[in-house]
């Protein structure tokens, strides 16, 4: 029974059947042939970075001179690049923390309530996704100019938190859509105050949504360049900003090395999410198996 411990709230009707089928190319081979160029076009500019990072030369170039990992070594030796990476991590961590609290709170607050203007409130929460980054960046710049006492990387983190809150909001809202609103009433009637309702009803339901939203939010904040460019200072330059500025005059393969690492990181995050989803689905299949036991 211990393996049921981590079961989550979820829609009982979620599709679960596809996982065990043997792998088979979907659809018609002609269609696949037509799609292949599109897929290659989508992936090639991203994947081309990796061989470029493996060049022997001192300049970023294509085709690369095979084969060396010196650009990765340079990257790890360069104090400035490592500092930028750490700044980026700190910025993303701060933005994700704020987004998780604010996005979940907003989703819980709006859950199951109907009032005039609800659509407007949701619209406002989602605006940062559609406003041009340049506008946000300029606004943030003008805003933080008046607050010199805030650390510069904190400013970027705060600015990013606005940007990534909608991602958490959306995923938590989706997680909550599977939550029976009567559970809240039921818990309250049994004597649960607000804190207990939050812990016993909402928390188990939103946990997967928060994880998914946090992965998105982290990825968005970590590679966001426009706002970070507006708010940068010598000791608060995020990794994407350093890549962007250094490509203008340095053209070092360190850029490609950093980009390859980012790519690797993003792939891992996606795999992690896929793994979590898959595990949730296979857990959901268990009860039937249990019931069929004698």
């Amino acid at each position: 029974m211990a393996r049921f411990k981590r079961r989550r709230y979820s829609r009982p009707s979620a599709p679960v059947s596809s996982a065990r089928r043997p792998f088979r190319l979907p659809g018609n081979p002609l269609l696949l042939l037509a799609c292949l160029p599109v897929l290659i076009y989508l992936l090639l500019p991203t994947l081309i970075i990796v061989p470029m990072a493996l060049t022997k030369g001192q300049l970023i170039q294509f085709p690369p001179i095979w084969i060396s990992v010196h650009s990765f070594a340079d990257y790890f030796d360069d104090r400035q690049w490592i500092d930028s990476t750490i700044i980026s991590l700190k910025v993303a961590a701060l933005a994700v923390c704020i987004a998780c609290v604010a996005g979940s709170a907003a989703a819980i607050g709006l859950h199951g309530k109907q009032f005039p203007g609800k659509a407007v409130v949701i619209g406002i929460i989602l605006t940062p996704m559609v406003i041009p980054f340049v506008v946000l960046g300029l606004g943030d710049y003008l805003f933080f100019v008046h607050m010199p006492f805030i650390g510069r990387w904190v400013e970027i983190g705060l600015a990013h938190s606005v940007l990534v809150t909608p991602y958490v909001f959306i995923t938590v809202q989706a997680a909550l859509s599977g939550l029976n609103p009567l559970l809240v009433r039921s818990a309250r009637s049994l004597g649960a105050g607000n804190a207990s309702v939050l812990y016993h009803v909402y928390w188990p339901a939103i946990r997967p949504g928060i994880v998914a939203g946090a992965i998105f939010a982290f990825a968005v904040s970590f590679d966001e360049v426009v706002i970070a460019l507006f708010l940068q200072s010598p000791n608060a330059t995020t990794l994407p900003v350093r890549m962007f500025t250094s490509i203008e005059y340095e053209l070092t393969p360190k850029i490609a090395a950093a980009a390859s690492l980012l790519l690797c990181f993003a792939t891992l995050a996606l795999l992690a999410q896929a793994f979590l989803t898959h595990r949730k689905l296979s857990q959901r299949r268990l009860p039937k198996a249990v019931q069929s036991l004698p």
Partner: protein
Amino acid sequence: MNLMSPSLNGSASAGAESRPAGRLLEVRGVWKAYTGDQYVVRDVTFTLRPGEFLTLLGPSGSGKTTTLMMVAGFEMPDRGEIRVDGKDVAWQPPERRNFGIVFQGYALFPQMSVLENVAFPLRMRRLPPSARRRKSLEMLEKVGLAEFRDRRPRELSGGQQQRVALARALVFEPDALLLDEPLGALDRKLREALQLEIKEIQRRIGISILYVTHDQDEAMMMSDNIAVMNEGRIVQIGSPRDVYLHPRIPFVAGFLGETNLLRCTDCGSDGSYARVRFQNGVMGRAQAPREGRRRRSPHDALVSIRPERIRFLTTGETPENVIDGVVIDCTFLGHHARYVVRALGQKLVVSSTDPHLAQHLRIGDAVRLGWACDEAQILAEDEDDGGERGR
């Protein structure tokens, strides 16, 4: 209250009646509007005594669920009092009141085991873990689910889930149990089985129950008393027998089962009955309305008589009310047959379980119908929907 006494424990004592549990719940003059002055609950007043099973029965939109939610604390009354043992609780949030509630679909916590679900209210009341476990197990024992304590709710059948929900709502010794259409979404067979089960658990534990349903059969079968609601008001309250046989107004007569409404003139009282003159001049007697005002004009009275209370008369029988008619339709329905008879210038529905009649009565036959005067009930005027004659 006597919830945990060992003599009640287990199924060995099934059927043994315990003394009434719960506290006196009084709802006094409660009003509720969601928007402006569109009241969905109007001046609702009733009392739930310890051990009583009271059903709020009405069509959808009659305000019964809103009333229950106000008792539970999820809605705030605009006016009126909700008292538990004389103490007004209308302004307390639900978690501070002490009612066990069972919702439609049961709303069990999916991530908790059966035992954890039942122990939840005790945990909220900060009982030590050992006492929680003991009391929850005792309660699971009472509803016959002790061996399922480690299952998740989704691994249980609908009936088992309901028993868990009941156990969870009973384990903290609530002042009353509130049930909001708990069987609404289930198919007929299962619903009937669960009705019996709820009734049985209530009998064993003695808790008072406030039950909301739109299903009149369910209400008749389970309740000690029924409060019929329409358009936000309680239009009649009484035992199932009383409400069925002596409906106060046309709405109640039409909502609970089938009835015949006969136009007549109210000619004043005659002992404990009232004399009425039907439209073709035939005189008869019927029960006077018990409460509520009579029709403004005595010429516009209505008498309600249930189809199964009207008899086909054989020669020589002379009950107080006799009319002549012609059979215009017969339908055989298994355990009874339903006849439509044209009499008094309208159609009367008569149902009979007599197999002899079913064989010999034909469409077009002339018949004499009769009923005893305490089977016919003069109706009072509907308060609001003056023109509407029931449903």
